[in-house]
Structures are given as C-alpha cells and as structure tokens.
C-alpha cells in the first residue's frame, strides 16, 4: 500500500471553507490531545465541516490521497480514541450541532453528531421525555463521540448504554459514500444490524454524522440514597446483595474515601469524608415502587455493615449528588500531577474480589490508586495518582495496570467497560480476544476501510 500522504490545505479549504480550516501552531497544539492523560500529538490540520456533504467530500479526498482522518467532537475521550496521528487531519464535528427533530409520537430524537449530550437530555426533558445515557462528561461530550465510543454512564445498570438508544444513523463510509442505517421502527430485521457495527467503532469504520435516538417517558419519581461503609469490600457485597434481591436500581455508584475527599474538596456538599467507602444509590420509576426499593436497599446496606444511610431530601439534592459524582475523575487530579483512569469491568458477582485485588496491587507496587465507579455494572474506575515525569513510578504503574487487566479477564471481565480501546488499551486487546476474534476484527476493518485512512493505529493495527 502506498504511504500516508500529507494533506493539501488548499483542498481542505475548498471543501470546508476558508474559515473552517486551522493550521496555525496555536490551534494545532490546542487539538493535540483529548481527555486521556499523558498523550499528545499535533495534527497537520483541523477542519470543521458544517454538513454531511462536506464530510463526504473530505473522506473522498482522503481516500484518494491516503490522508489519515481522525474524527472528534469535544475531545473528552479517555482512551486516546481521538488523539491525532502523524500528519492527520482532525475532523472536528462540533459545528454540526443542530437538533433536527424530536418526534413525540414515536419517541425519537434526531440530531447531528456535534450536539452536546446535555442538549439532547434537555431537549428530551422539555417534552417530558428522557434520554438515559449520562456519561461523566455529558455537559460537553458530543452525541457523535458517545456513539463512536458506545459511552456508558451512571444509569447503565437499569437503562443500558448508548448502544441501547441508537435507532438509526447517517454515516459517511471510508469511500465517501453516505449511508442511512436503521430508522424509527421498533422492530426491523432487514439485513444485518449494520448500525451496530458503527456503535463503538471509535471512528475507524466511518464518520457518524447524524444520530436517531430512542427516548423514554421520564420516570415519575426518584429517590437517592447515600450509604457509608467501614471498608470497600462491604460496599461491594452490598451491591451484589441488592442485585441478588432482584432489585435493579438506576444507579449504584461506588466511591472510595480518597475519591470522596477530592469530590467534597471541590463540590462542598457535605459528603461523608470519614467513611472508607460510600455507595450512591438511586431508584426511579413509579412512586410506590421507588419507595419500596429505597427501603429495601437501605436495609440491605445496613445488613452488610453500612454505618449510616442517608436519603436525599429532594430532587435538587439528588441532582447535586449525581453531579458531584460525575466530577470524581477530574477531582482526583487535585492530588498528583498525572491522573490515569482505567475502566476494568467484571461480572457483578466478582466485584468484591476485584476491589480487594486492586487494593493489594496498590500496596505491592507502592502506588496510590483511588477507586470509584459504576459498581452496579461491575464497571470500576481504578485511578492511578502519579506523575508522568517520574519514569520509575510510571514503570510500576504499567506493571500494576497489566496485573489489574489480567485479573479482570481471569474473573470473566473486560479490559474496558465504557472508555474504548483507543491507543491506551490497544496492547491489551489481544489478551481478551481470542485469535479468531482478533482476525475478524481486522477483517471487518480492512473490508470497510481498505486504505486505512480512518483513525489509523487505534483499537488494533
């Protein structure tokens, strides 16, 4: 195959317009990273297409000249999925940000890829409807990015993840052609479920330009509880016990003491900083069921060693708690210069084992690891608090990380629950996938993108 080409700026300007192409050093530096720690690379140019046609022409040009394209939204990804590659053009979709339709008869919402997740939630809310996926960065993340990474959030336990809400999409294929996949039908078995191929494809198979989302009626009531625990294991056991008791609350979030201290330091909302671990639990739905479930969860927490269970006084306090929880990752950056977040995930029955193992690894490698996460999904976020300038310590971080991933796989888990593989977890993927799966992955990619122009070097080579 011919080597990657260097983008021609004049052509990019002809396609997107003079003002929508950036090449100044000050811009390239500002687009040389996403939300992932310690990864930086300057692109050759940044372009802002304003409609699908422009995206299509960009891709055609790139395919003909083998110019690498890296698609991004707000750049909040946590696996380096939108990190630029050598001589690439960053295709930034934030200016394609119109909500095209809210269909209250079919309960769908159609939007361009650059619309913020928060705007989608707000637009649905205005109609008394509900878009459940709520990744931590939802205030600024784009829906296109959410689809590309198949983002999760705090409500995954009951409501699932982004994939469960994508009914259709418009996608520009690696040859520049434009395809519409899916639609408003709840049932639709015509052909392969092609849209599913693009959800979580991390910008390697196509560029999603429009998304059609499923909405739900907004739950009538919700109740938020905060339970304090003397150790992390009893919090983990509480989660397993709640699931075993046939209760599926919408949120079961876990934060260890270090994380609670950092979040409280930022948010000042009176979180209990002395407990070794806390669980943030939320149930929503019919008021009667909500009350019943809240009472049952509080009892289970107490039975498993919770020292105190608090109930949020009102909706505002619930929102405040959830908002504070969403800042956990960033708040942990208060402690050390570099904050490396992982998202090893295990079946829920194995949570207590995984939590103990992370603590043990931290001790063995003499590292500081704060852990929080979506415990109800088995999705943990062990977070290394370290310093990228300390080579020796970074070496220990790598080894500890390897062990944590290995353990997650041993327990039947995955190396990434919701952040994607990107570049950060690329080297671990072959440990999770068997040979046939790896081959299938590569074959699918090579079939769709034979010249390898879309997000090269991500997920796998």
């Amino acid at each position, binding site marked *: 195959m011919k080597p990657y080409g260097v983008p021609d700026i004049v052509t990019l300007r002809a396609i997107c317009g003079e003002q929508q192409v950036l090449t100044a050093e*000050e811009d390239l530096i500002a687009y040389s990273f996403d939300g992932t720690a310690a990864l930086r690379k300057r692109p050759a140019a940044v372009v802002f297409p304003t409609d699908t046609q422009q995206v299509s022409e960009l891709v055609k040009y790139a395919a003909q000249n083998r110019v690498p394209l890296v698609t991004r939204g*707000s750049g*909040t990804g946590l696996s380096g999925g939108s990190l630029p590659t050598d001589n690439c053009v960053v295709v930034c979709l934030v200016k394609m940000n119109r909500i095209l339709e809210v269909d209250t008869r079919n309960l769908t919402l159609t939007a361009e890829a650059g619309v913020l997740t928060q705007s989608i939630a707000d637009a649905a809310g205005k109609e008394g409807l509900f878009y459940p996926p709520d990744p931590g960065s939802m205030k600024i993340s784009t829906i296109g990015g959410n689809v590309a990474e198949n983002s999760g959030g705090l409500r995954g336990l009951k409501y699932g993840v982004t994939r469960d809400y994508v009914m259709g999409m418009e996608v520009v294929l690696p040859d520049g052609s434009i395809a519409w996949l899916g639609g408003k039908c709840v049932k639709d078995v015509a052909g392969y479920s092609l849209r599913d191929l693009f959800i979580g494809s991390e910008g390697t198979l196509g560029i999603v330009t429009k998304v059609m989302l499923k909405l739900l009626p907004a739950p009538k009531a919700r109740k938020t509880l905060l339970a304090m625990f003397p150790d992390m294991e009893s919090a983990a056991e509480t989660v397993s016990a709640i699931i075993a008791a046939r209760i599926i609350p919408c949120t079961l979030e876990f934060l260890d003491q270090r994380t609670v201290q950092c979040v409280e330091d930022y948010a000042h909302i009176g979180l209990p900083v002395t407990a070794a671990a806390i669980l943030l639990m939320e149930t929503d739905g019919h008021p009667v069921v909500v009350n019943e479930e809240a009472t049952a969860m509080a009892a289970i927490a107490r039975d498993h060693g919770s020292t105190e269970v608090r109930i949020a006084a009102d909706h505002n306090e619930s929102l405040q708690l959830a908002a504070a929880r969403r800042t956990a990752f*960033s708040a942990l*950056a*208060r402690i050390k*210069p570099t904050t490396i977040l992982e998202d090893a995930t295990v079946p829920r029955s194995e949570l207590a084992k995984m939590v103990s193992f992370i603590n043990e690894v931290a001790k063995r490698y003499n590292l500081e690891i704060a852990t929080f996460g979506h415990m109800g999904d088995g999705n943990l976020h062990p977070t290394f608090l370290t310093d990228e300038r300390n080579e020796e310590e970074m070496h220990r971080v790598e080894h500890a990380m390897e062990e944590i991933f290995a353990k997650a796989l041993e327990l039947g888990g995955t190396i990434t629950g919701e952040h994607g593989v990107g570049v950060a977890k690329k080297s671990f993927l072959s440990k999770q996938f068997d040979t046939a799966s790896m081959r299938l992955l590569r074959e699918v990619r090579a079939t769709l993108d034979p010249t390898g122009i879309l997000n090269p070097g991500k997920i796998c080579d």
Partner: protein
Amino acid sequence: MNNRNADTHSLHLKGLDYSVLQQCMHCGMCLPTCPTYVETKLERNSPRGRIALMRAIADDEMKLTKAFGEEMYYCLGCLACTTACPAGVDYAHLFEMARADVEEQGVLQRPERNFWRWLSLEVIFTRPRLLRILGRMLYVYQASGAQSLVRKLRLTAVLPKSLRELEPRAPAVRKRFSNQLIDPVEKSTPTRYRVGLLTGCVQDILLSEVNRDTVDCLLANGCEVITPSVQSCCGSLHAHNGDLELAKRMARTLLDAFDIEKLDAVITNAAGCGSHLKHYDRLLADDPVYAERAWQWSRKLKDIHEWLVSIQFRAPSASVQPENRRVTYHEACHLSHGQKITRQPRQLLQSIPGLDWIELPESTWCCGSAGVYNITQPEQAQKLLERKLDHIGPTQAAVVATANPGCHLQVEFGLRQRGWDVKVMHPISLLAEAYRNESQHSRLT
C-alpha cells in the same frame, strides 16, 4: 524594540511550579462555562486550550507569539472555568503570569497601545489625586451641559475613532467623591468591630454613593469604619493587564495606608478588586519588608457581603422604596468565580422585608465588562452584554443588583441602549436604603 525582555529564561510561565500547569488534565469540564469557547467553539479560545498553549511555552515547544498574546487578551479572565474545574486548576494565577509574559516579551506592542497603557496604567491609575482632578473635570463637562452641546454639535467627530466610540459610554461622574461623603473615622454605638474601608479608584468618582452605603451598613452592624481619604488603586487593573511590577507598587502603597494590626477586617465592595486584594500575600511573598503584612492583609481582607454575613448581620425592619422592590441579581465574575461568594449577597438582599426577588437565569455568566475588556474587545463584549440583557428583560425587574463597578456601568450602559427603565444598584445600596428607611418609619406599605 519588540524585545524589551527577550531572555526566555525570565518567563513567568517557566518559573511556575510545573505542577500548576500539569494540574489541568484536559477533561473539558470547563468548556461549556467559557464564554469565548461557547462563542467560537475553538479550543484555543477555551481554558484548557489556553493552558495547553501556556504549557507548550513553558516546555519550549512553542515560542511566545503575537497570536498567543492576542489569545490571552481575548480571554475575559472571568474565571468561570475555575468554578467548573474539579481538578482545582489555578487559572487566575496562570492567566496573570501569561499576560505578564506577553507584556514583558512585547509581542503586542504598537505605538497607540503603548501610549494608552502608559497613560492609564502608569500615569492615571497610580495617582489617586490626579484621577480625582480628571474626574472633577469630567463632572464639570457633564454637569455644565457642555457634554450635551458637544453631542448635539457632533463635535466628537474630531476625536480618534477609538475615543469617539467610547464617548457615549462615558458614565456620569458623581458630584461628590468618597472623601466628601465619608469621614476618616465613623463610629457606631456599640462598636463590636473595627474595620478599614477601601473606596477604590473608579468607584470613588463614578459610584461614590456605594461607598457611603457600605459605611452605613457597617455602622448599622456595630462596625467602626476607618476610611483613609486618599487611597491608591489596588493594582488589580495592573495585575490583570500584565504589569506585575506596578501591581506590587500599588499593593505596597495601599498597605501603607492602613494599620492592618489594629483592624479586624479590611472591607472591599468591588468584586474585581476583592479578587485581587485577597492575593496580596502571593503577590508580595518575596518582598522582605511587606511579605508579613501582606499575609495578614490577605487573611483580613473581606468582601462586604462575606463580612456582613460572617458577623451575623441584622436584617433590616423596613423595606426599600416601593419602586426598588422587584430585584434580580447579576453576579460579578470576580465575586462568584474569583471569590466563590454566591450565597451571601442573596442572603443580604433576601433579608430585606417585602423584596420581590427574581433569580436571573445564567446569573454567573460574564456581562462582557471584564475589566477593560469592553474597551479592548468591544465586539465580543457587546455580544455578552446582549446575552445578559436578554435574560434581564423577562425578569421584569426594576433593579438589577450587582457588586462590581465594571459590571454596574456595563449593564447600566446596556439598559440605556435598549431604553429600558431599569436601575442598576449595588446590593449594599439596597440594604443601606432599607436601614435608612427604618429611622424614617417608612414601613412596608
């Protein structure tokens, strides 16, 4: 001449503890709260983009360019990002260091800019008496009818374009300045506290009644108030505009005007000043003579709202004038973001009986005043002002309360432009009015 100080090793950004720059883990939480990013959707116009550029300069990956300089002045310095930042990045400090580097490297130097900077920063705002003389002249010009004559005859056409555009913005100078309204020592009985009062530079001549109202509120709450009759500018204007040396000089002069040992607190009523005044300890940390006093100063420096709430202020028993009762509150950036004071002004205002309180949507979004931003970046400033006014309109408030002279004048100008009959008042002025009405037995109607 473009390299007044070209030795790159002297860059403030490089001298910073690297962890301050590294604190930003580029999560993007700041983006939706940044007025310039929301306007352009370009990373370089966002806090994390700007920090990335600062870091690139500190790491020798990029030269300090003119474009970088322009970016640092496109930033409003509203500090909304610091409220949004869970990681606790000290953007205010980074921003001041970056602007100081921009000025010391001289990348933005132009004869006209140099002249205005010299005139304002070095001449006028270092000399409080000169400022008062200029204020007096402007007052005479406005009060004598000369201003309206000039406007009618369109004589402003002879002014340079930049001044011609500013002329209609010129706010009304007050007849009497702070020293004519406030005695150097005013006592209350009984006296619980002894506090110093900062009268400011702009506030002193353009909004001197706010200073009088502040004294009245302090007296009503058992504070003896010491107000030096001549006070220099606090230096926030200098620090925010990249002149740290002058900022230090102004800080020392102001420290000399107060006997900090003998005061329980030093009170400021201007948000922009307060946000700077509280950092004298850091500004003068290396000063062998002033460091200790600056440290004490920073601990005793209180915003008026913060102070009154902390000493459990007395709620007034009377209301404000009937025409001032429907009130909304615009939060000055350097009060809400710079000092994290959001609860106290509301608490004071809501203590006034009979007040019809309406929350302003987006109350913490910058109004575009941002120090001298409305002069240096008029276009973006106007957009922010329009956005603010669009939120004020539906509240149907009779009074917009705000606690910073810059915001006060900016919002007042905007309201005048739209021809709306809405007043701008400092929250303390409303509180003072309520206290005054107690003695006049003008109870709730």
